[in-house]
């Protein structure tokens, strides 16, 4: 079994106290808990403080470009469904520039896990308003306070068709670790919104404020992660009360599953050495 140490590459460069450390740690715990191998695990990210995570995680990694990690991650998984693909990134990365890709990744239901490290601000670029910033939040790009309705990522995931939706918090690494483990185990697109405070630029949404706002969803009466309606209800309340844990989970067919069941060899693993095998495709263009 791997150790956290073996799964760590170099020294993280996040600020002391940054919420992102916990996410790294929780992913490592999940990898260990699930007994995954380094070489079978791929961590994909965009650009942002959060998106540096694969720099510090010693599995196959792809630090791609801002806002486009999900399409890359889906490409990786579809090319080789044997791999475990974990996609990480920030709220700017995922819900500003990457918002369209998120909706489509959710509805496509490729079997990957997306962990959103939500600090409600653009940190790597030094503190601008993000799509998840609270209304009224003052930054250099919203000197009078943010005017836009914040994106409710949980609600967006549910309405876009994500088949696994959860919510975690950097202060609760253990819970986050096992939530990630179940997300990875889930067949289909799983999404976890993690409250991961930026201690440097966001003085409004902090460990304390998140702690006050959050509650364990599984401890609510009649907890039923199969219930889409309940999940929607909980998600609707997110801005006031943040439900921790698994909100929703359903089993539907995974993208290209049928086709893959016919072809047990992954596209990336196909033997392509003999082009002539495919000359039959030419026949329909021949004379009759």
């Amino acid at each position, binding site marked *: 079994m791997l150790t956290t140490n073996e799964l760590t590459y170099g020294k993280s460069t996040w600020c002391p106290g940054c919420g992102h450390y916990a996410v790294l740690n929780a992913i490592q715990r999940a990898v260990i808990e699930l007994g995954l191998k380094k070489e*079978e695990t791929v961590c994909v990210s965009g650009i942002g403080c959060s998106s540096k995570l694969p720099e510090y995680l*010693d599995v*196959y*990694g792809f630090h791609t470009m801002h806002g486009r990690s999900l399409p*890359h991650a889906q490409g990786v998984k579809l090319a080789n469904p044997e791999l475990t693909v974990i996609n990480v990134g920030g709220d700017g990365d995922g819900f500003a520039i990457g918002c369209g890709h998120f909706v489509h990744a959710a509805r496509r239901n490729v079997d990957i896990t997306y962990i959103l490290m939500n600090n409600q601000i653009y940190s790597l670029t030094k503190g601008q308003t993000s799509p998840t910033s609270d209304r009224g939040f003052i930054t250099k790009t919203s000197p009078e306070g943010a005017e836009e309705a914040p994106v409710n990522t949980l609600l967006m995931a549910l309405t876009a068709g994500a088949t696994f939706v959860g919510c975690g918090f950097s202060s609760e690494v253990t819970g986050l670790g096992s939530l990630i483990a179940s997300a990875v185990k889930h067949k289909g697109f799983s999404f976890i919104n993690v409250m991961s405070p930026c201690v440097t630029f966001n003085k409004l949404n902090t460990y304390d404020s998140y702690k006050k706002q959050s509650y364990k969803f599984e401890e609510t009466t009649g907890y039923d992660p199969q219930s889409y309606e309940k999940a929607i209800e909980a998600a609707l309340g997110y801005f006031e009360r943040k439900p921790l844990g698994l909100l929703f989970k359903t089993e539907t067919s995974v993208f290209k599953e049928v086709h893959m069941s016919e072809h047990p060899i992954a596209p*990336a693993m196909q033997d*392509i050495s003999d*082009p002539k095998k495919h000359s039959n495709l030419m026949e329909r*263009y*021949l004379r009759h």
Partner: protein
Amino acid sequence: MTSGSINIAIGGEAGDGILSAGEILCKIFFESGAGLCTYKNFPSRIRGGHTSYSIRAAGGYCSSRSCETDILVAFDEETFDFHNGELKDSSIVIYDPAKVKNIKKPEGCSPTYYEIPFAELASKNFSKHLYKNTVMVGVIAAILNIEDAHIVKGLSALIKAKKGEDVLKINMSACELGMEHYRKIEGAKRLAMPSGKIDAADSLMITGNEAVTLGAIAGGCRFIAAYPISPATEIFEMMCSELPKAGGTAMQAEDEIAAICAAIGAGFAGARSMTSTSGPGLSLMAEAIGLAGCAEVPVVIVDAQRPGPSTGLPTKTEQGDLYHAIFCSHGDIPRIVIAAADVGECFEFAANAFNLAEIYQCPVILLTEQVIAQNKFAAPKFDYSNIEINRGRLLSEAELNKPGYKFLRYEFASDGVSPRAIPSQAGGVHLCNGNEHLESGRITEDPELRRKITDKRMKKIEAAASSKYLPAPKFYGDDAARYGVIVMGSNTGAAVEAIDIISAKTGRRDFKIMQTRSLMPFCVEAAAEFISKREKVFVVENNYSAQLCGLVKMHIPAHGKLVSVLKYDGMSFAAAEIADRLMTEVR
């Protein structure tokens, strides 16, 4: 190359069945051993608007449209506006009085006109006026005296598969009706099919998009992600049904950025992977092309060009994406750009693009054009045994784990090509990175290492210049020729014919042609030599800015010798047009 040709143009409203009638005619000609090249002209709308289908049936393989028409079929009056300029004294014009009330006659020539009530004949005899097109096919068969066997084969090849035996029978009778009708016209003109023949048994009739698809699958492509766009859509559509059968996966992306990113993800994961698009999509891919360049991920991008800028003319043709393909994306990026001239090259280049992408670990852009992408051509059968698969420095797990070997994904290799491992391989775990990185792949900002990794990354393209998978320039004509012609892509066939036309007219073979098949890296030495031997060199291309000419100038200081011959009206060059322009230039 060709020995005479017969050119047929059928014009009418979009949705009138003109396209399928054209296809049937093509098939019949193909069965009869004619070399074929087709040219569809249709608007960017679904129904209505003038559409035409032109067929050039030649005595040998041919790849450029003609600008003459021997038989013009007019289902509407607009047809005359579009095609009168192509008529000559010997032409036959057939029109359906149902929609053609006034005949607009061309100036300077007097073709022969026949009124044939296709629609009426069809609805009277077959209760469906759509059979008018088959009646028309019969008329043309009569004019050209085509053997019955070929007609039967042509009709049945296309119709049986789709619609069954009964429909075929009706079509046969409709065709016969057309033949008889024409034969009954007194003194009706006949025209002869060209005398030469292609070896039809060893030939294909195929579009560029289809050829690209066959080439890609043969070349080992097992992943495509794309977004529909004219004139590239057919590649993706065909991949959607064929790739799964070859063990691959097709994903319809939400946009072109997602498409190329998914393809890059798949390339990183070890599948030969591609995306197909046209100009607007290629523009959107600029940032990701830079990522593939920086992170050194193999990916193939097929760009079926259409006229820009912006949405431009989605159903017409142009060669205006060259600059973007070569220069797009911020920063300095290793990339390869090649351009195919015909369906044969579409097949071959598509297959080799994957070798280039994997060997040089970079994005490879294959340029085609609407005129080859969406039109059907007769061509020699594709030679699958010519295709090699070369995966470059992709290491095996054994190599990765050889005692004492330390795998560094971006190792400072002398030719710039570092070893590569893919997820699932033990011993190859690494970070693939679009941030500037160390040999290991982890971020660095050190100036000296930045310089070194840039050198390494860019050096690959020098290496690629001498790769056997990179298509070398091709030459046509005499080396003693005074004048040169530089072309790329679809203009090749037209230019080659043009110099034949010129020599037929003038008796002189004054022009030698250089087809630049790889644009990045550019074939500098060959081009320099070619130009140095010529008094003047014409760069013939389909765009406004003289992009190919600009590229040549960037590499070779022969500006004074270079003369641009440009066309940017959405149509392809016909051979005669090039011949005229060249003759005017050297007069």
